[in-house]
């Protein structure tokens, strides 16, 4: 069983972990989504949010931008962090389940776009 969390802003991954208010927590069993819930952490300090994620028993965090200190904090507790992922939450989850989601190079690794003015597709 894996427990994945993604910071959420509407239907997309929230751009910055420390100030995200809501998190989607997904339990994966045998390669499929077994359970999905929302975690409302609005009003919490950034560090308290990270502690809540740890206490929630999350194994994997998929996020866009992540502050260096939280990268160190979460990975220090054995949580696998996949940073630099932008776009819709469901798309990121599907890519993760099909093994096509590779992490960015460093905390804060951003999106890469093909073409101009949003005509291209996101590369994960």
């Amino acid at each position: 069983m894996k427990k994945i969390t993604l910071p959420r802003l509407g239907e997309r991954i929230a751009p910055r972990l420390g100030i995200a208010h809501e998190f989607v927590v997904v339990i994966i069993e045998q390669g499929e989504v077994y359970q999905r819930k929302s975690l409302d952490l609005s009003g919490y300090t950034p560090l308290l949010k990270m502690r809540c994620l740890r206490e929630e028993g999350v194994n994997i965090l998929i996020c866009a931008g992540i502050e260096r200190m939280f990268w160190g904090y979460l990975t220090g507790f054995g949580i696998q962090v996949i940073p630099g992922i932008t776009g819709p939450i469901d798309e990121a989850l599907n890519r993760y389940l099909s093994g096509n989601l590779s992490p960015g190079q460093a905390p804060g690794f951003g999106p890469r776009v093909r073409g101009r003015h949003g005509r291209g597709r996101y590369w994960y």
Partner: protein
Amino acid sequence: MNEIDSRTYSAILDSIDCGVFTTDLEYRITTFNRAASQITGFSPKEAIGSFCYEIFRTNICQSDCALEQTLSTGKQLEGLTLDILSRDGQIVPVVVSTSVLRDPAGRINGGIETFRDIRIIEALRREVKKSYQYEDIFSKNHKILQIFDILPDIAESNANVLIQGPSGSGKEVFARAIHNTGRRKNGPFIAVNCGALPDTLLESELFGYKKGAFTDATANKPGRFSLADSGTIFLDEISDTSPALQVKLLRVIQEKAFEPLGGVEPVHVDVRIIAATNRELRALVEEGTFREDLYYRLNVIKIELPPLRERREDIPLLVQVFIDKFNSIMGKNIEGMTADALSILINHDFHGNIRELENIIEHAFVMSKSRYIDVDSLPEELKRSASYPSAGMDGLKGAERAAIINALRIFDGNRSKAAEFLKINRTTLWRKMKEYGLTGNST
């Protein structure tokens, strides 16, 4: 825009040392200059076409987007102090301005955001702040700065200290600073409020008791003096102790030993005593309510703290310190206080001193809905008591006189600084002071 225009336009943008990007109405980035790339760490190729909030990533992008406000109202926003998350995970402080882009027909067709990296300014600000800071104490007041100069020596010595100052003036903060920077910093710091407990309870609290000393003493209990061994004990409101307890305290200081209640064997301790009082201890000695020998034992080094109304120049600094503190506790992002609200605080007499100021800021944090604490967020009684001394003058002249009095009070009568604060010429200030009869000692 033809190709040459586009190249010229890019060259102009790239020559500016301010970060600039433009977006369409869907918040997708359409241009991204060289400085923007340097500050954020994203290349123009990565940024163009992305949503601005996924590249710029400020602390307000997810709640209070500045560009969204500008696009919906058409109004320009200037000088917002924010922070962004750079590509490599660094938090970068920036000053941001936003405005709209219009097509030839005057319709809004996008937004423009300019920003400056203020890391150097912030670093300098922190350095300046450091010179007004000793541990958790912040002040620009000359009396406190003089105390700052001697605090390291006080901390390094092992002498007992007496801190005298009104309630809420920060006596315990000073005691902790002395402990934290002294030789005993790795030992415990134990604080006891001698005025909060009845005498018999205070004695057992300070010295502990042995099993069977009294009906409920079912086990040995160490006192605060034992717990503070090799550290510091802070005895607040020392003037409230009874003569009997004063004798026991004197013995601890002289012999570094005491007997717990019901005990016969003395307990030896190595404790530094920092005592504090909000009363004039010398006067109590003369009255005969405080032992003279204990007074001299405690008063090896004396620190006298002024009330907050005598260090009004510290109010803006302390307001910012408490704003930073409550931002981190409450997870809010309040940047400061409006000039009107600050003016009310500067004119307030603060009988509860710094503790009262802290409570006011905490109240304002709960009430405030914007990034700056305004008058509406202040407690009602403070707003009611906020009266400007108009000395019989109404209207504009009364307000002007009050503003001059306030400025002179803030800067201890220094006319140059008051004039600078009021944004008027020094000569104009002098002329107005004469006009309003403020040239004597009326301020």
